[in-house]
């Protein structure tokens, strides 16, 4: 249809071909967006519906509950979420994941801010060498097994610190911070130095407040990365199931063929066992999935404004 379009200029008036094209584009995007969103919605309604209806596949588009007569009617319940308290090992993995997200992100941001500031200092001894020393690690790694053997050697297996310390130096984030700080007028820093402020003070009082936007960017991406972390837990925590991250725990739940009811706390009270029987394997899987998605969806609106900054600055390499 584009070939037939002959009308020049005056593009504000749309031809019939234009309109068809626009409609197609819109339909295409709506379809793709639906595909992106529907699974999350479907997951959600499966966790807040009646579990029997879920098991028999009667929850397709809306959350359903049974009424007194046993028919499926629209409705929601949150008992599955409450029953998660009894799912074994879930609590510790949530705690570990929250702890690593908070601590790991905070340390990473501070380190990136500090290193990113220092590498802007032309006066540093062998500055460009050390900068390259840091940056080159982005493009090169020794391989999974040597890395694992190194962590073993450092005593970082079965150790919570393994979640935090290796992630502190993030070269990409250092580049982002450096690029950002370079865009801050140097005169601000100079005047502080003239007033007698040392490097640390300049960093604390001038640089940090001014680089809040970029620090927020790396913090939010770092937090999401920490929350989603799975591989290090899988590789390093073989003997410490209590240190598994949430994603690792979920991975185990998803792969356990046995009924997860068996994973509920053993020997609970009668009411706990009743709660346990309410949950079947699928519902536990769905509910735990939902629990690990919700925090991401909650920070998502705040993240959005940093997307472009995060990507674009990275393209401007140091």
């Amino acid at each position, binding site marked *: 249809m584009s070939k037939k379009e002959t009308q020049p200029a005056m593009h504000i008036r749309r031809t019939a071909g234009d309109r068809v094209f626009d409609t197609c584009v819109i339909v295409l995007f709506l379809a793709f967006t639906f595909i992106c969103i529907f699974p999350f919605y479907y997951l959600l309604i499966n966790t807040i519906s009646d579990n029997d209806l879920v098991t028999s596949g009667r929850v397709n588009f809306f959350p359903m509950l049974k009424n007194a007569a046993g028919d499926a009617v629209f409705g929601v319940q949150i008992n599955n979420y409450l029953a998660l308290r009894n799912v074994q090992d879930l609590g510790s993995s949530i705690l570990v994941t929250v702890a690593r997200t908070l601590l790991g992100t905070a340390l990473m941001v501070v380190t990136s801010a*500090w290193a990113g500031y220092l590498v802007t200092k032309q006066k540093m001894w062998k500055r460009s060498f050390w900068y390259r020393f840091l940056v080159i690690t982005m493009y090169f790694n020794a*391989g999974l097994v040597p890395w694992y053997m*190194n962590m073993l050697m450092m005593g970082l297996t079965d150790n919570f610190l393994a979640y935090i310390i290796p992630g502190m130096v993030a070269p990409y984030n250092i580049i982002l911070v450096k690029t950002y700080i370079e865009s801050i007028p140097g005169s601000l820093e100079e005047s502080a130095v003239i007033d007698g402020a040392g490097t640390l003070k300049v960093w604390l009082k001038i640089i940090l407040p001014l680089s809040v936007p970029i620090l927020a960017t790396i913090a939010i991406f770092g937090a999401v990365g920490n929350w989603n972390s799975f591989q290090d837990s899988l*590789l390093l925590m073989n003997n410490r199931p209590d240190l598994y991250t949430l994603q690792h725990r979920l991975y185990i739940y*998803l792969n356990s063929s046995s009924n997860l009811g068996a994973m509920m706390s053993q020997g609970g009270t009668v009411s706990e066992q009743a709660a346990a029987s309410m949950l079947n394997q699928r519902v536990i899987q769905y509910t735990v999935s939902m629990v690990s998605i919700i925090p991401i969806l909650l920070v*998502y609106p705040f993240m959005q404004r940093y997307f472009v900054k995060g990507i*674009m600055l990275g393209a401007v390499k140091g």
Partner: protein
Amino acid sequence: MQGTAKAGIPAAERQSAGLKAPLWLFRLTALAAGMAIFFPPVNPGRISEKINSAASLFTTGISRDTITNSMGRILRSQWIQDQDITLLMIACVVTMVGVLACAAGACMSLGNRKMRKTGLILPIAGAPVAGAGLLLIHKAYQNMTAHGEEVGKLDTIKIMLPDGFTVFCVFAGLLFVTGLIAFLTTRPEKDPAVKMEMEEKYRLFLMMLPVIILSFIFAYLPIWGWRFAFFDYKPGGAIGPENYVGLKWFGSLFNDPATMNDLGRVLRNTLIMSGLGIATSWLPIAFAVLLAEIRSTKFQRTIQTLTTIPNFISWVLVYAIAICIFSTDGFINSFLTNVLHRTGANTNYLQIADHTWLKMLLWGTWKGVGWSAIIYIAGIAGIDQQLYEAARVDGANRFRCIWHITIPGLIPTYMVMLLMSIAGILSNGMEQYLVFENAMNKDVIEVLDLYVYHIGIGQNQIPLSTVVGISKSLIGVTLLFSANGISKAVRGESII
């Protein structure tokens, strides 16, 4: 004298030009010793095999739990006495203090003459302190041995002098000698008005040093693990001349039929999946260009927001979603059964190995296309609007505008992305394939990264997996530099 003092370091350096060697040796030793404190393999305090092998000197000094966590019975039965453990901990702390004093001295030795002279007193005092700490460790070792003999449990408590003890003795000796020489060859600052100062370049460097050390430990030190490729290493075993096998494992990539077979299959999967990814790498551009054609910015932004969400969930969660849509009791089947009233709809689509490559591509696209498009959306926003106006005046319709303005405007970014993905053709990560892997699709889904994980961590074939990892790293670096070279030659811009 006044003049040289004012000139500060340069004059001092000129004077001691011939004697820099001990000073640098001292600094390097102090750096190494300072790092060794946190290094479990050279823990001088591990005087019993029952002490956690993952404990460094630092941990041994501060955490009683770490020392004792695998000696419950030994302690309860008093085969090792509490007081000896306390002695050991004190000894470790003393050693540590001595070494750290040397390290501080090494930092100060970067300052002006006055600072250097003062700083170099630290190793002269600190190295003997470290030595005293080592003597105390030895004392604890003797006490434990004596007591162990007394109760006849020497075999159980396994007292030994670790390698780290020797290492630290060498450190202490070296630090003392080099520190002393450096001290004696540094002439004292005669002018009392000169203050202790450090040139800014060294000050900044010292501030940076912790970051550099961390980066070294976690990004460079793993390369030391490449040595496993040259030995017949078994987990828990040792490496030494007796199991050195040279390039045997490298050879096995080319002459061991089973390995070659596996590698061929894995490489095929890797290259096909990466190839499919590269072949569809224009999709984000199409996404961005088409999205830009929608007039309502509100609609645009909503679409962009919603299609980016999948990028931020982990592959495990993607798999959870896959289960809830495609498994036996997932959406597809229950939709077929309960809405379309088909009978017998209970296929578990995840267990079907057909079209695995394509499915993986689709999952990757589902997760990534919205996110990848953002950089192009930003690129489109950055294109000069005057170009479009001029084109329209010249009679171009919107498709011509896209073809002649938008696309060429995005090509540079696309080239960078393309070159990067070509450079990373062997690394498609393992998470996606690990979570979707099952008994049915194992043969077609296993990519190189997953293979390394399976043989290295799963089957404990450390040497072979190291060899595969080394080859992959080297090829990756070569590809990256080639891509960079091409980029430089063609576009006059480097990508790394």
